[in-house]
C-alpha cells in the first residue's frame, strides 16, 4: 500500500472514530469510548508524523512569503493539536472504566474536567470540519485516483 493511500485511509478512520466518540453512550458504551479515545490519540500522532514534511516546510515559511491558505491550515492544525491534547487529558481525568489515578489528577475538579472535555470536543468538531474542507481537493483527488487504480 502506498503511503498516500495509507494517509488517506487513516484520515477517514480518524474522522469516523472521532464522530463515534462524540456521544459516550452510543456505539458500545463508555468502555469503547475510553479505549477508542486512547486509540485515536495514536492515530492522531501517526497522522502528524505522516504530514511532517508539510509541517516542517510551513513552519520554515510561516514568517516569510507563505500563501494565506497554508497559514490558515497551519494555525488550524496547531489548534487541533491543542484541542486533542486537552480532550485526551480531560478524558483521562474523568475516565470511569480505566484507572488513571496514577497520573495524579485532582478528582475534586471533575466538573471542570467534564466541561473541558465536552466543550473542547465541540470546538474540535468545528475545526475538524474546517480542516477537512480546506483539504477537500486532496480528498477528491485521492478518491478519483483510487477509482482509476481499481479500474486498471
Amino acid at each position: 500500500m502506498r503511503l498516500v493511500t495509507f494517509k488517506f485511509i487513516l484520515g477517514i478512520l480518524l474522522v469516523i472514530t472521532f464522530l463515534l466518540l462524540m456521544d459516550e453512550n452510543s456505539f458500545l458504551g463508555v468502555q469503547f469510548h475510553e479505549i477508542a479515545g486512547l486509540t485515536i490519540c495514536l492515530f492522531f500522532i501517526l497522522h502528524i508524523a505522516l504530514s511532517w514534511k508539510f509541517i516542517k516546510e510551513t513552519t520554515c515559511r510561516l514568517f516569510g512569503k507563505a500563501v494565506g491558505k497554508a497559514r490558515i491550515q497551519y494555525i488550524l492544525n496547531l489548534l487541533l493539536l491543542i484541542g486533542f491534547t486537552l480532550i485526551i487529558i480531560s478524558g483521562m481525568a474523568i475516565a470511569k472504566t480505566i484507572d488513571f489515578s496514577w497520573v495524579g489528577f485532582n478528582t475534586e475538579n471533575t466538573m471542570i474536567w467534564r466541561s473541558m472535555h465536552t466543550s473542547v470536543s465541540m470546538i474540535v468538531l468545528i475545526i475538524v470540519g474546517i480542516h477537512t474542507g480546506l483539504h477537500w481537493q486532496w480528498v477528491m483527488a485521492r478518491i478519483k485516483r483510487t477509482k482509476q487504480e481499481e479500474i486498471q
Partner: protein
Amino acid sequence: MIKKILCLALVIFIVVGAVYSYNKVDFGQKTAMLFRVVFGGDEGMRGAPGGGPPQGGPPPAMGGPWQSPSRPGFRPNMAQGPGPGYGPPREMRGGQQPPSKKLISLQNIIPYAFILVFFVLITRFVELIIRKEFSSKFSDWIIFPMA
C-alpha cells in the same frame, strides 16, 4: 441541470439537518460550558430555570414563608419523601441500570455528523468565493499583508 438541482437539494438537506442537529444536541450550550464554569462561576446557572441560590429567609419548616415549587431556587423537603414525581421510574430503582435495547446505536452520532458536514460545506463555500474574487490578482488564495 439535474446535477445542479441535486446539489442544491443536498446543500439544503445538509443546512436544515445541521440547524436541527444544533438544537437537538444543544451544541451552543455544550460549547460554552467550559467558559461558563471557568469564567462565569455560577452566573450561568442563575439564569437557568429553577436554578440559582436560595432566596433569603428561613425555610418553611423553620417558620419561613411557604415556597411554591415553581419558584426559582425551590428545594423540596426530602425528609417527607420525594413524592411520586421524583427519581427514576419504579422499575429502574434500587441501583439497577436501565436496560440497553441496542448495543450499537448510531442515533446520537448523526447530529454531530451533520454539524461536521455543514462546516466542511461552509469552508468549501468560503474558499470558492475567495478563489472567484481574487483569482485575477493572486495565484492561490490571498497572500497575507505580513508576507
